[in-house]
């Protein structure tokens, strides 16, 4: 290979208003052979319309089963810089908060040990160090732990939990997303680093039903803030919205899913007994309305992408649970869930698929919850009931 970097196709991606990863990567190509060969291989992919990576191998750091994704070029002779190109998933902080100082320290480590490329962040939430050789995995690990960081999850383990900004910067937060995420991540370091589950288990925390971490779509377990009592109303601020010409009727009243809002003059009335906590009215008039005071979380289980049985949204297991440190009730429940899934789930069966396979009634019995109508959209509409109790005669005729 000549040392010159010719990427006519990729160069087309330097044009346009959106920040260009090509421009950025090219700025690194001088420093790093890995980046240079990555760009070359990518250029070839763009020409041939196919990827050139081999199926990942088993690589990692000592004593951990997760946190590293092995990756090898299918054309190592042509692109030796990426013959190994593994990623390390660095467990991000709660809410993705950083200081410049902390990030700069991580950058120093990564410039020394790897390609200097990153994903800020991976889709599960990790800070992803993108691309290094097998021999650098352990040194990178040592360096990051030295600075107080650790790896995230991969494989059949607890995946790196993540959360929305929550109480740190949001008036809607119904529980401390940041604290719970920290608590879970630290309590389950073993489950996170050593894959022992049937399959991956993702937990995401959103402070309210706006669900800014997509917990209900992308996490095996969603912990989503909710309140039980009434929406707090500031009538004076509401009157301001009306006065400002904001079309409360069309944009709020009519859009409430249960039509439980009415407006009399400049006063808003909410039939809280029929409010389904959708957040819309609060979102549209944040100065006038706020989440209630009796706060906690709903817990959903089973969200996932389509493979194998079709995509699932999480389904409500616990419609309301108080959520204060040390979060005992939560850990208790999680323990029962893992135990039951571990015992009866199949290999590579996500918890959502497991619940559908064995049935919700059996599942909640297994984890010790009682059936309540909040768990379903509606009761069954088919008559195929497995009655378990029936009368017995002394003798069969």
């Amino acid at each position, binding site marked *: 290979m000549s040392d010159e970097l010719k990427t006519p196709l990729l160069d087309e991606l330097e044009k*346009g*208003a*959106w*920040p260009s990863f090509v*421009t950025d990567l090219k700025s690194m190509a001088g420093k790093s052979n890995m980046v240079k060969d990555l760009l070359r291989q990518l250029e070839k992919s763009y020409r041939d319309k196919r990827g050139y990576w081999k*199926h990942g191998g088993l690589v990692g750091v000592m004593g951990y089963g997760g946190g590293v994704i092995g990756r090898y070029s299918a054309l190592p002779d042509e692109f030796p810089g990426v013959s190994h190109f593994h990623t390390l998933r660095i467990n991000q902080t709660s809410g993705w908060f950083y200081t410049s100082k902390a990030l700069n320290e991580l950058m120093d480590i990564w410039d020394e040990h790897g390609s200097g490329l990153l994903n800020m962040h991976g889709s599960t939430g990790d800070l992803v160090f993108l691309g290094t050789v097998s021999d650098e995995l352990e040194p990178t690990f040592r*360096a990051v732990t030295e600075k107080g960081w650790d790896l995230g999850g991969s494989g059949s383990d607890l995946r790196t939990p993540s959360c929305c900004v929550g109480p740190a*910067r949001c008036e809607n937060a119904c529980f401390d997303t940041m604290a719970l995420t920290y608590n879970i991540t630290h309590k389950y370091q073993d489950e996170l680093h050593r894959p022992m589950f049937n399959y991956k288990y993702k937990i995401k925390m959103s402070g309210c039903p706006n669900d800014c971490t997509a917990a*209900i779509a992308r996490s095996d377990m969603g912990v989503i803030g909710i309140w039980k009592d009434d929406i707090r109303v500031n009538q004076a601020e509401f009157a301001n919205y009306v006065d400002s010409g904001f079309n409360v009727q069309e944009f709020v009243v009519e859009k409430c899913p249960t039509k439980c809002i009415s407006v009399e003059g400049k006063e808003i009335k909410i039939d809280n007994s029929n409010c389904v906590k959708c957040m*819309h009215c609060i979102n549209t008039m944040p100065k006038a309305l706020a989440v209630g005071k009796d706060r906690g979380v709903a817990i959903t289980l089973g969200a996932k992408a389509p493979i194998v049985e079709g995509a699932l949204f999480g389904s409500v297991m616990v419609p309301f649970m108080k959520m204060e440190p040390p979060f005992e009730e939560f850990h208790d429940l999680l323990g029962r869930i893992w135990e039951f899934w571990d015992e009866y789930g199949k290999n590579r069966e996500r918890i959502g698929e497991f619940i559908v396979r064995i049935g919700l009634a059996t599942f909640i019995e297994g984890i010790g919850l009682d059936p309540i109508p909040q768990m379903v959209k509606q009761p069954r509409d088919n008559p195929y009931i497995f009655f378990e109790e029936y009368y017995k005669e002394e003798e069969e005729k």
Partner: protein
Amino acid sequence: MSTTTERKTDIGPPHYEQFLHPIIKANYGKWKYHETLKPGVLVHVAESGDKIFTVRAASPRLISTNFLRKMTGLADKYADGYLRFTSRNNIEFLLANKDNIDPLIKDINAAGTLVGGTNNAISNVIHTQGWVHCHSSATDASGLVKVVMDELAEYFTSMKLPHKLRIAVACCLNMCGAVHASDIAVLGVHRTPPHIDHKNLPNQCEIPTTVASCPNNAIRPTSIEGRATVKVDEEKCMYCGNCFGVCPAMPIADPLNDGVSIWVGGKICNARTEPMFTKLVIPYIPNNPPRWPEVTSAVKNIVELYAKNAKPYERMGEWINRIGWPKFFDLTGIEFTKYHLDDFKHAGTTYRRSLQNRY
């Protein structure tokens, strides 16, 4: 820089508190309301009256330490060294001082990126690895994001849409991101069955796991010249690639036939309507790198029709539900084909089992 100290394990990430701006720490859990000052700029007001200003900048997500150092530099300059990332990979600078907003924006732009993504905007695109890193990909992700957002940048830097619009890109059916619940999604697809490398399969793959991996029971154990391997019933294979995920000897990439599909109308939040899955609108567009012009124009067409026709506070899926799918296909000029008719497990529940219909 490798150290000689004791090896640490299982320490977990650092405590977040040390990364919180003092104003945030002081008002933690005591925020009262927020306002959007302009595209990309929020202010959150605490019960105490304290304010924290947020300036949100786009990031390509696939970045280098160069880029990130530029950003930490700006944080040091304007934000007391505090910054965070959002769940959609934007960068947020947290400012105590309102006066820093405009200079910061200027510097962000100078660093080659944009400020925006708040409220009724298209925010950053959730995406995946593509040809940059993943063995499974049917297309590239970073490149697609770049060309799509080049086309739509004005909707990132303004807030002129009816409501939020969330785009996702994934490079294969594993959908490592938000494809199944996005307003618009671009999804890499294969269209031919995997090839079987019978020579290596017996060593590289566990046969029962491989057989079980197929959503459609297309894989059967078999033996060739006395060695256990598998065969694929090509009538049943719908090219999902899951077998390749567990068995490297079943590569599925096919440059001639791989490409992308386009999906619309998904949603995650619970506001107004319940979460919705994204639905198929264009089953296949050939890969046409580097700029995938057919993809960008299809996406732009949909965005512009949404911008023009949806009412305030209507997400893509809510708009389509109001006007009906027949009208959506009419308006966009997209062809409705047999591929749009579901034939997976719950297909029967998608049939129109009512007389309520549009003509």
